[in-house]
């Protein structure tokens, strides 16, 4: 039905179907089949959605930084890199916002409050604000190249800033439970199906991210093309106005 009328291709449509199937499977595994945790009980089910969200946000911001670096270092400075950086940053903000909300809901159940001043939560909040600022700078106007250069430099500054903020917040306060999978002493003991659900979530969200970036950077390409075309129209108008 979509034909060639949108930002989709047969590849993205196949990817989209795959993502939907995987998310459905994730919902079944995470909410139904998998067992409850010995300590955390049913609340462990929030992990299957919360951890993939924040994972996706990290991938997204990483991609933003990478594409910004490529844009600035490339000889021809293709705006395509800037658009991928921008699309990825926008999606990263979405996922970090979602994971802040689900994280604080999870916190309400495990810690009894929506917000605790622990290191990871606090530096995630800073991550969110930093990239909201990045998106605001992208909206400042000017030519595409001005936008691209400003925002690429800012994205690289953010890459520098985030470890520093995280490190200082960690020094400031560290009471949070350790990362579940990486630390063998963690409170959560994952059995086979629980681990499978978590990894299914990570894969599904990563593919979802790829699908979103593909579409978003194509819409951005169209937005840029339209403002360029607006430029062509305006040039003709100015020339006519001169002749009149």
């Amino acid at each position: 039905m979509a034909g060639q009328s949108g930002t989709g291709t047969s590849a993205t449509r196949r990817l989209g179907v795959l993502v939907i199937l995987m998310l459905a499977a994730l919902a079944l595994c995470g909410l139904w089949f998998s067992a409850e945790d010995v300590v955390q009980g049913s609340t462990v089910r929030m992990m299957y959605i919360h951890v993939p969200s924040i994972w996706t946000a990290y991938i997204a911001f990483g991609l933003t930084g990478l594409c910004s670096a490529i844009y600035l270092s490339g000889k021809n400075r293709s705006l395509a890199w800037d658009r991928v950086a921008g699309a990825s940053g926008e999606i990263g903000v979405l996922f970090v916002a979602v994971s802040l909300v689900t994280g604080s809901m999870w916190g309400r159940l495990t810690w009894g409050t929506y917000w605790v001043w622990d290191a990871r939560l606090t530096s995630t909040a800073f991550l969110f604000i930093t990239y909201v600022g990045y998106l605001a700078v992208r909206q400042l106007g000017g030519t595409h190249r001005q936008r691209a250069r400003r925002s690429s430099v800012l994205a690289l500054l953010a890459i520098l800033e985030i470890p520093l903020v995280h490190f200082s917040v960690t020094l400031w306060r560290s009471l949070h439970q350790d990362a579940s999978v990486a630390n063998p002493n963690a409170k959560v003991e994952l059995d086979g199906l629980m681990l499978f659900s978590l990894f299914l979530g990570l894969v599904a969200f990563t593919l979802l991210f790829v699908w979103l970036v593909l579409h978003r950077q194509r819409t951005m390409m169209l937005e840029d093309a339209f403002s360029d075309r607006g430029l062509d129209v305006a040039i003709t108008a100015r020339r006519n106005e001169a002749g009149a």
Partner: protein
Amino acid sequence: MDTVIELSGVVAVLGQFPALAGVDLSVQRGEIVLLQGPKGAGKTSLLRVCAGLMPIERGSGHVLGIDLATNREAIRSRVGLLGHANGLYLDLTVMQNLQFWASTVAATESEVSAAMATMRIDGRLAGVRASQLSAGQRRRCALASLIVRRAEIWLLDEPHAGLDAAGRDELDALLRSAVSSGATVVLASHERDRALGLATRTVTIDGGGAA
């Protein structure tokens, strides 16, 4: 004669607005060229492009033999643009302004006094804050800073604006003497008659294109 500015088919944008829609321009050393046209015709943008301040989207151009598309930053130290703003620090005195510019290009004390003499800035005026100067005095102070900076091409945007008749005549005389000592001047004006006597050549610009 040697060509100092050479533009062909230059398009430049302000935001999404095409301030220049395909401009051709050629200026020789030692000329006083008047860009003439109504307000909003693109005169200011043309001067900013020549100064290497505004990027060109399409077309090609060279200033003092330097390519505008690839190396516009290199042009900047050799031209002086005086726009609607004079580029002065309002909380500094005239002398402090000129000394600041002098220290950025390592100009000597005697070069500063020479510039002040050319622009007829005396000791009393030198001690006045820029915020307390008249429009003509600010213009003279800004032109003096161009001399201190050793600019080879002077790009002046509406230099006569805000000056009274005596101030305009004085400015014309100052510009002629600057040209005779080696500068090239391109000035923009929408007042046709005012600058005609000064210019050695006139270029009409309208709708973002030069005719």
